[in-house]
Every structure is written in structure tokens, then in C-alpha cells.
């Protein structure tokens, strides 16, 4: 197990380096940062002076090395737009995104896994149909539309929840449902498919034949195996939620890291975009790593592969 963990950890670090280098170089290819910084009235000399001042004229590898060294010490530079340290900006916004992401994935898992299991126990029953309907609706409904429907219903018609903002736990209820609902269908369908597959296998028949209680068969024997691909999927979805909740954050005025990333791209705020790409990719890498470890723990066969 330790060997497996070390191997995966080494791989994760390599991926992290590659991602950081690609993100750094991609942004430089996207445009001339000196032109973007200089503004409308700048002359050619002004732009050249800025290029020198910020060191954009040096080899990219040197710039990357410096940036990475500073980043490892938690210094991502100053945002061109806000003129504040990027690290503090991200730290502040990340708490909103983390809260939303964790609530979202919890909501998705808590609703999707039981529904998936129930649908698999009785395929083609009413429960299965309802679960299918929910998953199709979840995939088909754009989150901006679903978000607005919830706002109209719960904030305007019923007046139960605040329409937007992040100052109380109640502010997170609607965004959690919208974000979680988007991830729910995939998790549910995968749980259902995994359970159906496992339930028809020989060892389950054996377990039932030897008289094991049904609940024990379902949750101890079947779900443990059926859940393995779900763990990987949930890890990816979690990474997606932390980096990709731009629409939900925008509709509910949550000012999280996803919305910051989107806006920073529009504003050509290079230091912020670079730092956010690094942070988001770290999430993906860490969650994928954790999912691998969790899978290896659930399924000993994976440790040798």
C-alpha cells in the first residue's frame, strides 16, 4: 500500500509541475502582457519600458522559475486589477468556493447514491423511473435557469431564502442545490449501473444462498464494489465544482474563486489567472490522488496494478 501511495504521489507532483508550466506559458501566448498593462495612451517606448520593468523581455524559463519559486512560498504577486496580493485575494474567495463545493458534492452524494441503489434494487420500477427522470432533468437543465427558478420560487414567491449573497448559511442553500443537482445524475447513474452489475455476479448469489441478510448483502458486499468508480467520479466532480462553479457563483453573487477566475481572464489579470489555474489544478490532482488511495483501500487488486 505504501509503495502504491508513493508511486501515485510522485505521479501527482509531476502532473502538478507540468500543469503549472503549461498554464504559465499558455498565458504568455495569449497576448503581450506589457501591451495589456500599458493602457490606451501608452506609446511604443512606454510599452518597452514596462516590458523591462516587469521582466517580460527575459527568457520564459527564467520567468517561470522565478514565478514558481515565489509561488511555492505562497507569493503569487500582486493582482494587476485589484492591486492587492493575489494570495490574500484567492484565500478570501476560496473559502466561499470551498464551502459551496463541499456542500454541493455532499448534496449530490447524499441524494444520488441512495437513489442509485434503490433504482438498482428494483430496475424498471417506479423508483427507477423517478430516478431516471431526475437524472435526465438534471443533465438537461442549464444551471443559470434552474438557479433563477429557485430564486423566483423560494426568494420572491415564498420569501423563505435570501436571493443572493454569502453572509449566512441560508445563502448557501439554493446554490448548493443547483451545483449539487448538476453533479447528481452522473453519480446516480453510475451507482445504479455498478449495483446492477454487481448484484448479478456470482459472489452476491453465493452470499444470498448462504443466507446473509439482504441489507448486509446490499451494503457490505455489493455497494462496496459498486461504489469504486463512483469515488473516482465524485473526486473529479469535486474538482470541477471548486474550479467551475462560475455560473452558480455569478447568479447567486457569491464572489468565489470560479467567478474571480472568469473575471480575471476578461481583465487580463495575469498573476491572478496563473495562481488560480495552479490552485484549481492542485485541487484536481489532490482529489484524484485521494480517490486513487481510497479506491486502493476499497479494492486491494488496484494496489498491484
Amino acid at each position: 500500500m505504501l509503495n502504491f501511495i508513493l508511486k501515485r504521489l510522485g505521479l501527482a507532483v509531476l502532473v502538478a509541475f507540468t500543469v503549472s508550466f503549461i498554464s504559465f506559458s499558455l498565458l504568455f501566448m495569449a497576448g503581450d502582457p506589457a501591451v495589456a498593462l500599458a493602457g490606451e495612451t501608452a506609446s511604443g517606448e512606454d510599452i518597452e519600458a514596462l516590458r523591462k520593468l516587469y521582466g517580460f523581455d527575459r527568457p520564459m524559463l527564467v520567468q517561470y522559475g522565478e514565478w514558481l519559486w515565489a509561488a511555492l512560498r505562497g507569493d503569487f504577486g500582486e493582482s494587476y486589477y485589484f492591486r492587492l496580493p493575489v494570495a490574500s485575494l484567492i484565500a478570501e474567495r476560496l473559502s466561499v468556493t470551498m464551502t459551496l463545493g463541499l456542500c454541493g458534492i455532499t448534496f449530490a452524494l447524499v441524494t444520488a447514491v441512495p437513489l442509485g441503489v434503490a433504482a438498482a434494487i428494483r430496475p424498471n420500477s417506479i423508483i427507477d423511473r423517478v430516478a431516471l427522470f431526475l437524472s435526465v432533468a438534471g443533465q438537461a437543465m442549464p444551471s443559470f435557469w434552474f438557479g433563477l427558478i429557485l430564486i423566483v420560487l423560494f426568494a420572491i414567491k415564498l420569501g423563505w431564502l435570501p436571493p443572493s449573497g454569502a453572509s449566512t448559511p441560508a445563502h448557501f442553500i439554493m446554490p448548493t442545490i443547483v451545483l449539487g443537482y448538476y453533479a447528481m445524475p452522473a453519480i446516480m447513474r453510475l451507482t445504479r449501473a455498478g449495483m446492477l452489475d454487481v448484484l448479478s455476479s456470482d459472489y452476491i448469489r453465493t452470499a444470498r444462498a448462504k443466507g446473509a441478510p439482504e441489507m448486509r448483502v446490499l451494503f457490505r458486499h455489493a455497494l462496496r464494489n459498486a461504489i469504486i468508480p463512483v469515488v473516482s467520479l465524485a473526486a473529479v466532480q469535486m474538482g470541477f465544482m471548486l474550479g467551475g462553479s462560475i455560473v452558480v457563483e455569478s447568479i447567486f453573487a457569491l464572489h468565489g474563486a470560479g467567478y474571480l477566475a472568469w473575471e480575471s481572464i476578461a481583465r487580463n489579470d495575469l498573476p491572478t489567472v496563473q495562481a488560480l489555474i495552479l490552485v484549481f489544478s492542485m485541487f484536481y490532482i489532490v482529489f484524484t490522488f485521494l480517490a486513487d488511495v481510497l479506491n486502493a483501500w476499497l479494492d486491494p487488486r488496484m494496489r498491484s496494478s
Partner: protein
Amino acid sequence: MKKSWFKTTIASVALIAASGAAWAEKANDTLRVGFTKELENVDSYFNSSREGVVLQRAIWDGLIYRDPITNEYSGNLATSWEWIDDLTLEFKLREGVTFHNGEAFNADDVVYTVNFVAKEENGVKTQRNVNWMKSAEKIDDYTVRIHLKEAFPAAIEFLSGPVSMYPNEYYAEVGPSGMGLKPVGTGPYKAVSVVPGQHFVLQKNADYHDSPKGKASIENVDIRTIPDVNTQMAELFSGSLDLIWQVPADQAEKLAQMDQFTVSNESTMRVGYLSMDAAGRSGDTPFTNVLVRRAVNHAINREELVAALLKGKSKVVWTPCFPSQFGCVQDAATEYEYNPEKAKALLAEAGYPDGFTTEFYAYRNREYAEAILSYLNAVGIKADFKFLQYSALRELNMTGDVPLAFLTWGSFSINDASAMVSQFFKHGSLDDARDDQVLADLTIADSATDDATRIEHYGNAIARITDQAYWAPMFSYNTNYVSTNEVSYTPTADEVLRFTTMTWN
């Protein structure tokens, strides 16, 4: 059982939230306002947003004040001023004014502020607002002189707009980042809380001096940034916002039909125009031919655009500046009536009887750009339409890679033609005309100190620009302000929300 538990939880959390949230805040004397855009830095020299101008006018004061309705200048932090010569302005300062942190206002503050912002390396975001000043000099505690780099007749206009006075000791200590987080000014409102880009809380300055801005009536102003306009409307409906602005015309029309809201519309200084690459900076393009540029001008039905899309107080504009700006001589402009047949004939004469295909860029109001595109299509100009973010398009513009673009300019609410026509036609990086005759006229107009000379030369420049059809100026923008009936506010044409003129009904 589980389901009812879930319901109960949601309902109880909602109830707690509702009791904690602030509904209908007239009783608490707090006006709740929605902003759309994240303001980068409250320090007014380090942002270029409309939202920044709104906060600047609330928190700080300038030496001079311009009445937004009569356009007359009066003293604010200065009580009087005079031109010593073309390059020197002397001010007598108001005594007994204090900053929000208790620091007394005097000549040292003016000297420090001017010397700080005029220095290019300090990086003031909109250099044009400050780069005409060379330095400031203290004569005595309440007399100060501002020295100009060269003659700049629009100085008074700039001093009544974007140039605010900062407390020298505090600013020296905290700098732009500190000022952005804890702003300190002399204005009618003081900032009590700032969450960068997200939330700003202002409180009435009870000790506000006898300024022409007038004392505030509403005690607190609570501003939240809500990027989605639909969410802003939901906040308004649910009673957790009192005022929103920049509401799209179609939404404003619907809100106007509802009894509980007041919708008012006012023009802004923003002008929408087509820019054409007359100088051929983007390579071999048909727009180097004046006949093609005139054809484009004739192809667009400006009246229809205004009536169908912009609505409100928008107007057709024929000049490369906003009509109310000083020097924006309306009679000088050539007006191109909507005549697609004439446009086709001009294109044929220019050697394009079947039209041509060009790249067409835009960065905002996609629906306007698409309408313009359909007019161009109708006369045979086909376009490869590219919709970019502002910063990306601006970069392409600066490097001269844009043959045709739908652009807009708001002049930072400066009521002087130099803020628009001189920005684009003085051979800078955004100048796609590069006309020496225009440059010569604008150079004189920008620095002449007597009004008649300025008007004459701006007029000449406008005549030349419109005759050569370097641009196709089209329309002015407008803004819709929507408030609950409890708020009384009359907007002004410069698109600055003035909290001091707002009252409860």
C-alpha cells in the same frame, strides 16, 4: 419521515435567515444599492470603472465642483481660483474642513496629492486625468498653485471631476492599496466597510462642510456587487435592494409597468461608433478608400437602432464626441442619411460592385453589433464577426489589427471634447485615421486658452473627420435606474449616482 425532517430544516434555516436579513430598510435609514461590476480599487486614481466614479463623488471632494445640470463651476475645497498665466492656476482653499479621519485639510494635502498623482511612475490608472499637471506648490497654508506641463484649458473641468484631494499624512502611510481598503476623504459620505469588489458600506458625514454638493439626507448606503441583472431584479422584488441601475431596456420596460417601482431613464456621455482602418494599419483593407467609409456611413439606419434597441433618452450622434462636450461643434459634422442604394453605388464606384468581406469586431452589446452587421450585409459588406472581451479587443486596436469595429467611449464623464476626439485622433496607438490635418487642429484646440480658438479648431477637426468618414458615429447610450417607490432620485446625464441627492419618499 426523512422528507418532512428535510423540509423542517429548510424552513427553519430560512426563517432564521429572514429574521437576520435586513428587509425594507427605510426604517433603518439605509439605502441598499446593487452594482454590476466588481470595482477593482476604491482609490479613485486606481480604477477606471463607472462604479469608481460613483464612490469617488461620495467619499472625496475636488477643488472645484461642476453642477451636473447647469454645467456651471463653483468652489468646493477651493473657495476661488485664478489663472496666473497659461501654465499656473492659483487656488484659495476652504478653511475648517477635516478629513474623515480627523486630519485637517490644507495646502499640504493638495500639494501631496497633485505631486503624487502627476508622477507617471506612481501608476495612476487613467493617465489622461492627471498627466496635464506638472506639480503643485504651497504658497501658504490655504493658498496653493498647480503648475501645468503645457497650456490645458480643460484643467478646470478635470479638477471638478476625476481629481480628488487626499489626506497627505494618511496617504503617505497607506498608499493606494490601503486607501482602497480604508478610504479617507472629505466627502459627504465616509466609507465604514469595504470588501474589495464585493461590498461597500457608506455612512453620512455629519461634519460635512458647506459644499455645493449639499449634505446627504440618507444616513447609510449599503452597496453590494451582484453580477447577474436577473438576480439584481430578484433582490429588488424580494425587498432586499432599493435601487439598481444600468438595467437593460427590455427589463426596464417590464418593471415600469409594475406599481411598486419607479423607472427613470437618462442619457449618458457614452457614444457608440464604428471605427474603420482608414490608415491601412491592419493591411490591405477596403476601408482605406474614403468612398467605402462613406458607404458604411450611409448603410446604417441610426434612427431605427435608437428607436428599436437603445430606446430611452438615446439620440443619434453625428460627431466623434458627445454633443454636450465643450468643443463638440454639431454644425461642423457631415450627416450621412440612411440610404442603402447610395451606399451600394459608392461601393461600386470604389471598385466593390459585389461588396466585400471583412473582419468585424465588437466587445459589448452583441445585439447592437448584430443589427449593424445586418445593415452592412444589406449593402454587400459581409463580415467575419468576432466578439471579444474588452481587454483583448483593446490590445488588437492598439497594435492596429482591426479593420472594422463597433466601439464605444464614455469620456469618463468629462464634459470637454478633448476627452474623446483628442483621445482617438492624435496619432496615438488607437488612431486608425492618422490624419496630419486633424492632428494639427486638435493640438491647437487642446492647448488654446481662449474658447473661440478652441471651438474653431475642434470644429475644423470634426469637419475633417466626418467628411473623410473615418468613423461612423451612431448613437449615445442611456441608463435605466430602477428604485422602489420609497426612494426619490432624479438621475443626471453624466451617469453618476449621487447619493447626496437621494431622499426617502
